[in-house]
């Protein structure tokens, strides 16, 4: 549990900048949610038995969680690792690179969870998530955060410079958001594209969260949880392996 000291360090910095941080994590998804949800949603009939804005709120919960986890583990993580050399200072103490990787992933997942939980709270206030089942989206949001934090940290420990992240953002995250059922039902997708989506973590988060927001239990729960857990575990293992090579060569 030595990673808690690293989690706590990041938490203390976040606490100092809490308003700016929460605003920057929520402004984008909420503007999209209400802009597209009400604007575009007014033109659409109900989608999968829900109003479009409720449908989109479930997707936004997942995509906002994904983006917060990714930004924190990549851009903020890289700044701590590379710019500020905070990791170097931590390594003089009786902590190891494994502790740092665990602390960073847990921190990014925690911050991401807060984004997801806040989107959920806003959706609830607007009557878009009325069922008690929505409480179950909270652990799912943490798991989505964990998966993307772990994969994001792999990018961070691989990165030589800031530009490296644009490849991952543009070539992977943006298309993944499009095909994972955030904006529209995946049934609209051609079969091969759907299969790609099913191999990626965001799809499984959406498949769990959307029924819960609508007040139904999701189907294939075990598979969805397993894929998210697999991404988290594989990302964690890969990040540790690469970070060890980077730091103790």
């Amino acid at each position, binding site marked *: 549990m*030595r990673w808690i*000291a690293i989690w*706590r*360090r990041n938490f*203390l*910095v976040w606490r*100092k900048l809490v308003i700016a941080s929460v605003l920057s994590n929520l402004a984008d998804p909420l503007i999209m949610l209400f802009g597209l949800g009400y604007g575009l949603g007014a033109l659409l009939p109900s989608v999968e038995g829900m109003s479009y804005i409720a449908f989109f709120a479930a997707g936004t919960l997942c995509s906002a969680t994904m983006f917060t986890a990714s930004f924190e583990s990549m851009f903020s993580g890289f700044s701590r690792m590379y710019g*500020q*050399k*905070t990791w*170097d*200072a*931590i*390594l*003089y*103490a*009786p*902590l*190891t690179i494994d502790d740092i990787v665990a602390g960073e992933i847990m921190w990014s997942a925690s911050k991401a969870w807060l984004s997801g939980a806040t989107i959920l709270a806003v959706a609830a206030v607007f009557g878009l998530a009325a069922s008690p089942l929505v409480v179950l989206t909270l652990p799912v949001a943490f798991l989505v955060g964990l998966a993307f934090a772990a994969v994001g940290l792999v990018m961070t420990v691989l990165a030589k410079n800031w530009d490296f992240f644009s490849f991952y953002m543009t070539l992977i995250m943006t298309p993944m958001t499009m095909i994972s059922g955030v904006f529209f039902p995946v049934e609209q997708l051609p079969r091969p594209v759907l299969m790609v989506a099913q191999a990626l973590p965001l799809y499984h988060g959406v498949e769990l969260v959307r029924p819960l927001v609508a007040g139904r239990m999701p189907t294939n729960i075990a598979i969805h949880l397993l894929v998210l857990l697999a991404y988290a575990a594989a990302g964690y293992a890969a990040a540790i392996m690469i970070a060890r090579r980077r*730091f*103790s*060569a």
Partner: protein
Amino acid sequence: MSALKARALRKAYGALEVVGGLDLDVAAGECFGLLGPNGAGKTTTLRLCLGLTHPDAGEIQLLGEPVPARAREARQRVGVVPQFDNLDPDFTVAENLLVYGRYFGMAPRAIEAKLAGLLEFAGLAGREDARINTLSGGMKRRLTLARALVNDPQLLFMDEPTTGLDPQARHLIWERLRRLTQEGKTLVLTTHFMEEAERLCHRLAIMDRGRLIAAGTPRELIAAHIEPQVLEVHGNGADAWMERVRNLAGRVERAGDSVFVYAADVAPVLASLAGQSELAYLHRPASLEDVFLKLTGRDLRD
């Protein structure tokens, strides 16, 4: 008792051997200086001793713990002042110490109890709420030193502790480091300031290209490796003068537009300077810097 012991330490990066069969012995309570030109392998040696870099071969014992196997346990009782400050820019002076203490598993109350003493030591009393980017270079260095002391270490590693500081700031650091040795702490520092090494270190080792090439007290090194008197001469006609005195005494060396004469007795050479109004000269006792330049050469290292 030995605080740090390394045997046959080796580390290569590809074909480049950075540390090549190094033996080190640092006794508890001494201030030990590792000298060497840039690229000699000093920083890599420190990283190896801390267990941050894994050696290709060799053995290390730090405070009785085998490294890297039990580096974590060893680092619990060690402090580090790195070559480049890496204070946490997101925190104030006091927060830097509080957060750092937590990395050692210290309870918040235990760190808070030490805060006033550490700030006083660093000459930062009253600045606890200052942001890091408002501190001068000297203040940052002192805060980094205070941070390295938060866990009350038995041994302190310092990588070029006064590089980039002005003389005032440097003297203050030296004074603090002497205080630490008086308290019984073991200091291991790297430097390429000979004056710093001569003033602070009980024992020195000179390192070049990954190997130790000389070791001993500053006086022993000077006595063993260099003639006691030095004459530095420069000016118009120095070349011609050099040819004339070449056989008068000791060793004559040329660097840029200066001529260096090293000898046990430079009186005959001094006599030959009489009436040479174009030549400026300096007659001084040999120093550690002369030893260093003799052993590692005058060529640039970068």
